[in-house]
């Protein structure tokens, strides 16, 4: 099965959401990120890998250290999706209104 990586995959996990919030404040090294979590460094680096595959992070080499930056524009996809989701629900509920109206009529 093809593995789809996108922003929704990225935010599906609470640790990844926390990493996104950290990086929203500023670029960090893998160790700097891991210091914020109780879990192992391996676990954190796995999440960083997923976030990179989701194309949410960019890397910058500074001397011996790698810094991760958050690609904020990617997060806009979530805003777009929320708008679409709201539209979907509004439409769905309008349709439900009609169905309820018919049900009421047929009950009379």
């Amino acid at each position: 099965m093809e593995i789809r990586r996108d922003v929704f995959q990225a935010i599906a996990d609470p640790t990844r959401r926390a990493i996104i919030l950290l990086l929203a404040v500023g670029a960090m090294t893998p160790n700097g990120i891991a210091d914020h979590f109780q879990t192992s460094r391996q676990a954190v680096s796995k999440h960083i890998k997923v976030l990179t595959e989701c194309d949410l992070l960019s890397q910058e080499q500074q001397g011996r250290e790698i810094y991760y930056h958050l690609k904020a524009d990617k997060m806009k996809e979530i805003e777009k999706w929320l708008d679409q989701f709201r539209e979907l629900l509004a439409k769905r509920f309008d349709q439900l209104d009609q169905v309820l109206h018919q049900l009421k009529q047929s009950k009379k």
Partner: protein
Amino acid sequence: MKTALLFNFDVDKKNDTIHVERSFNAPIDLVWAAWTEAEILDQWWAPKPYQAVTKSMNFEVGGRWHYYMLGPEDDIHWCLFHYESIEKEKHFSGIDTFCDESANINNTKPRVKWKNEFSEEEDSTIGQYPASF
């Protein structure tokens, strides 16, 4: 009398939750039936021009609703709703996921966790739907 319908859609980014609230001009038993009976759900669940088609539905805790959305170009999108808790005419909750024809869940697509709460107010019913993903 037709009262204005309430529709709230609030996003709680910190908890990745969307709070949806909507009122319906119908008694609670009808609204409950519309959310929990396959033949009624098929009439409104899919946004037109899509059409929802139920393959199987077992409305009980641990049960599931296996359905697809039929698109205007005959495209088919299979979905599965798992029921986690049910209290008649009060609330039910579960997880909505994408799957295939044999109900194998597709883990690469977003899943939505719903709690649907209903309450009656005079001659209308209010539905509250916190969704998290």
